[in-house]
């Protein structure tokens, strides 16, 4: 292509650019929430309850008079935090376990059986069950969402390790005296970076959705902290009277997850991952 790199990129990956732009917008609005015409998201003002979106309350108010606009913007922080943390943590743990089991054969047999078993349980049920055992907090939600995601990453990493191990370059490295950790770090890991990044974005998107599901079912972030799932859960009883309580946080969540998925798709095409 003879065009400048920036123009070429936009033309080649329009959806990814849209996704990045949308994501950036949501990131900015959540982080800069205090400066964007918001009030305290937890302040109750019963006199203004259940008002339609209007000049004073851009997204309306809920049954306690809380401003939905502020709650939505602040709620974004939780969702983004959970999404990114779950993505990074499951990648890190999955890589660790995957690399180790790629080389330690006896350990691998047990670990992979456990991973198969974990994968046989539908992720949300596992997350729900874990939340039933842990107290409601953002940290525990992250833990409950990371555990179901680890097996898939482990599988991917281990498969790559097993196939890359047999290649000639590894043999050559051994001949030069490289120890296993060095081989893992310098030869095998770099080959995994691209597919892992793509997988990470999908895990992030899925985690944001699952956090909302958990909160909606009452097993997620504690009610004092506004998260998109929480806000929608509280708006359940008002579907007919005050649909805006559910509409706006859900729209934000859908847009964010869509953006992350588009970025993931774009990365997959860009990095030529299958």
């Amino acid at each position, binding site marked *: 292509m003879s065009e400048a790199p920036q123009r070429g990129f936009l033309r080649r990956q329009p959806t990814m650019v849209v996704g990045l732009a949308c994501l950036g917008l949501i990131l900015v609005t959540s982080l800069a929430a205090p400066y964007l015409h918001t009030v305290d998201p937890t302040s109750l003002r019963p006199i203004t309850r259940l008002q339609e979106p209007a000049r004073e309350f851009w997204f309306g108010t809920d049954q306690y008079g809380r401003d939905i606009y502020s709650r939505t913007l602040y709620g974004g922080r939780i969702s983004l935090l959970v999404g990114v943390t779950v993505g990074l943590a499951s990648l890190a743990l999955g890589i660790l376990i995957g690399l180790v089991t790629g080389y330690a054969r006896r350990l691998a047999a047990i670990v992979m059986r456990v991973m198969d078993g974990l994968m046989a349980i539908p992720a949300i049920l596992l997350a729900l069950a874990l939340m039933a055992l842990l107290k409601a907090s953002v940290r525990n939600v992250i833990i409950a969402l990371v555990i179901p995601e680890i097996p898939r990453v482990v599988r991917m990493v281990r498969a790559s390790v097993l196939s890359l191990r047999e290649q000639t370059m590894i043999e050559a490295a051994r001949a030069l005296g490289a120890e296993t950790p060095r081989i893992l770090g310098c030869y095998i890991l770099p080959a995994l970076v691209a597919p892992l990044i793509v997988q990470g974005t999908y895990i992030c998107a899925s985690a944001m959705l699952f956090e909302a599901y958990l909160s909606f079912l009452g*097993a997620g972030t504690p009610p004092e902290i506004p998260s998109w799932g929480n806000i929608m859960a509280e708006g359940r009883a008002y579907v007919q009277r005050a649909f805006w309580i559910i509409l706006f946080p859900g729209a934000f969540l859908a847009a964010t997850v869509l953006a992350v998925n588009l970025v993931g798709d774009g990365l997959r095409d860009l990095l030529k991952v299958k």
Partner: protein
Amino acid sequence: MLPLVLRRIMATIPVMGVVALTVFALLHLTPGDPAQLIAGDYATPQDIAKIRTTLGLDKPLLTQAGIWLSNVLRGDLGTSIYSGLPVTTLIAQRVGPTVALTLLAMVISVALAVPLGVLAAWRQGSWIDRVIMIASVSGFSMPVFWLGFLLVWVFSIWLGALPVQGYQPLAEGPWQFLRHLVLPAATLSLIYMALIARMTRASMLGVLGEDYVRTAFAKGLPPRRVLLGHALKAASLPVVTIIGVGFALLIGGAVVTESVFALPGIGRLTVDAIVRRDYPVIQGVILIVSGVYVLLNLVVDMLYVFLDPRIRY
């Protein structure tokens, strides 16, 4: 054929074993005393001690595991702490709506998504392809319950055409049965459809580039015959895989959808059990649902042999 099937079934036993062990360990390996967890925050030390002896939690861990496992194999999944009913009874009561919902959603999804995916691959790059793909990604990104509420608002509140919630068993009339299930099934299927359409398109694109497809067109076969008779069959393997694997997402979605539409199914049972910390029910449901999931994937594996004659186990 039979030894093949038996061998595949044998392979699932260790997996189910791990599932059972995980389910058992969930209660015992997390921080805190299980008896205290079950008793709740307001229990006295006497209550906790009584629960401990009644549930046999004072025996060594391996003994407990053994007892629990032998019970499960005999079909006894324990007793609900909240209602005192056997877990198997509770599950049997609720299984109808969930099965109906899930099956309907699966049928709708596959029936709509596969043709759409084929169409998108056939007309790659056109506006149809783009629309279908964008709709897929969007459908996949939307929270299930938000979509559900949107549909409820449009169809039940605004148009008044369909009931807002509730479930009518098939025995009381198929028309009401369908009316109550249409919105939940549509909600659930949109997510599943997105997955299947994407995978169908990707797989078809791979197949349509093959030489034998070009030959088929060159021979003058009508497009429909080439697409459906030759290409789809070759492309079906990943699609069938994703139908099996995506079933887990379907179950997760069903849990949430039942909550939205107040369907008295297993999803509701689980959510109620989670909120009430009713561990025997949670364990029982996870065991059964995982078992169904494993079984479904086993069926998918068996289907491979029919779809691709080159596969031999």
